[in-house]
């Protein structure tokens, strides 16, 4: 009986860990969405596709150019951010005066193009990306086995999320950003280059997606569809958390990952849908979202 209990505990913590890893990606993507939404008031539908692009860039870098994981971790987010900046400058900005639904449709189109191109080039079956040598192996804890790479994902995501939160809430640059969210015209009048800040914010937001993509490459298979499936979940998370606060997006992302992990352990059939069901509950009880301000 004790043995059976041990196995169960092992399984439970295993699923919790997977949940926490999924949550790390949800948090990174939701954070990127929330930052972009804060300043531009648009939802970037291509966030998932750019996450996919990040994973593919890492894979291509390794297989075609011999770029190591560590260099990818540095270079790919910058590359994705540059692509994001170009997209913002040449596609999103020209329609910034129109209804925000148009920018949703525009970024949806961008997502279709990216996903379609990679499906054409690489097919829809996934490809493997090796775990870097430095992070192979794992640690045996009393209640579970913790692979090093998975621990790395969680640490990395937490550090990046916390740093971003700190930058936005506590630094001068963050203050500009928050002021831009409140009243862009007034800030412009104070001599701050608002369009530049908007462009950089967009670049930073999608750069986070690129980073998440590189982190994800060794644990999920690299495939063109990896972005769209995770993005829809992240949308639900954004509805649950509300996009009013940066901290809220991070906490909801991690929290929903854990909820998903627990569901996988106790009732696996619902693990795909549990986050959407939580969203339904939140809509019924607190429609503005857990951290939302507006009605």
């Amino acid at each position, binding site marked *: 009986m004790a043995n059976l209990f041990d196995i169960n505990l092992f399984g439970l913590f295993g699923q919790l860990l997977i949940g926490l890893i999924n949550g790390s990606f949800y948090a990174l993507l939701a954070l990127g969405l929330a930052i972009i939404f804060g300043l531009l008031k*648009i939802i970037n539908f291509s966030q998932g596709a750019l996450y996919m692009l990040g994973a593919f860039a890492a894979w291509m870098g390794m297989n075609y150019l011999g770029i190591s994981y560590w260099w990818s971790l540095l270079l790919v987010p910058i590359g994705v951010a540059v692509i994001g900046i170009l997209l913002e400058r040449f596609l999103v900005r020209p329609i910034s005066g129109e209804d925000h*639904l148009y920018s949703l*449709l525009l970024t949806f189109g*961008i997502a*279709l193009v990216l996903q379609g191109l990679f499906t054409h080039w690489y097919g829809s079956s996934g490809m493997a990306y090796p775990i870097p040598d430095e992070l192979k192996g794992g640690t045996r804890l009393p209640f579970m086995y913790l692979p090093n790479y998975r621990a790395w994902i969680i640490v990395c995501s937490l550090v990046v999320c916390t740093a971003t939160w700190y930058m936005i809430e506590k630094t001068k640059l963050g203050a500009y950003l928050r002021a831009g969210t409140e009243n862009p015209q007034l800030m412009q009048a104070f001599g701050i280059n608002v369009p530049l800040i908007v462009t950089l914010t967009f670049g930073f937001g999608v750069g986070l997606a690129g980073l998440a993509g590189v982190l994800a490459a060794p644990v999920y298979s690299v495939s063109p569809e990896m972005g*769209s499936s995770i993005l829809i979940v992240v949308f639900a998370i954004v509805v649950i958390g509300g996009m009013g606060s940066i901290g809220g997006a991070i906490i909801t992302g991690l929290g929903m990952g854990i909820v998903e992990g627990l569901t996988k352990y106790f009732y696996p059939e619902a693990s795909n849908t549990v986050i959407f069901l939580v*969203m*339904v509950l939140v*809509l019924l009880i607190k429609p503005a979202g857990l951290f939302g301000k507006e009605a």
Partner: protein
Amino acid sequence: MKNMKLNLILLGLALVAPLVLYPVFLMKVLCFALFACAFNLLLGFAGLLSFGHAVFLGSGAYVTGYLMLSVEGLTPEVGILAGVAVSAVIGFVYGKLAIKREGIYFAMVTLALAQLAFFFFLQAPFTGGEDGIQGIPRGHLFGLIDLSDNITMYYFVLAIFIGGFALIYRTIHSPFGQVMKAIRENEPRAISLGYKVNQYKLMTFVLSATLAGLAGSTKALVFQLASLTDVHWFMSGEVVLMTLLGGMGTIWGPVLGAGTIVTLQNTLAAGPLGSYIHVIMGIVFIVCVLAFRNGLVGEIQKLVKRNF
């Protein structure tokens, strides 16, 4: 009624079309045109962007398909009615939830709810999982007319389309439709005038879902297939594209948009660009948003106004 002549010409063309064009292709266009018109009712006239309309198409298709296959001797009109009823009920529940949020959140909520339904249809025992429901019999209309012939089926689908289209036309030109447009243009004002805005939104949502279900049920009979493609988020995106391309908020826009996209897909699928289909649709999306926000019908109207 100044357009009566135009409508009669179009009706005449639709009646003789199967003599010239492949009837299954025409039926596909009609089903998607009805789907896009239903969607346009919500987006173009009530200003609500649903990114999960595939759910209603797919629910109609699955329910009709399942019943036609499992109930011996069921007539197609009953099968379709059952599919439509289920879509209407799901539309009511989803609409009730979605109208709690507005704008971009509305789009995200509907997309997430649609994904919930997608996983349901993937896992439910009666849907055949990845294979879908295949070999759905078309049956005998009213127990009398055999629909297995494509030409007969075409006139049945045409009748359904005209019925659905007429209902949408009537709705838009009714007092209800006027309130709908008022809400789209200025919601706080509509509220201050005493309209129960949420009830109007919900009713429009249900109507749109019901008609989308009708399109799905009919489509299941035409292709004798109900599959996950019908409930996938990509299908939800496709109907947005059809409406946007044709011209949202216009009566004929979605029909033209659906015709264009279906023709494009059929042409591309046969040619060397087949595997670029998503890329091309994405580009059409981008171009529409950047340059043709009024859509084909909107641009034609502008052209006519300028030159005549």
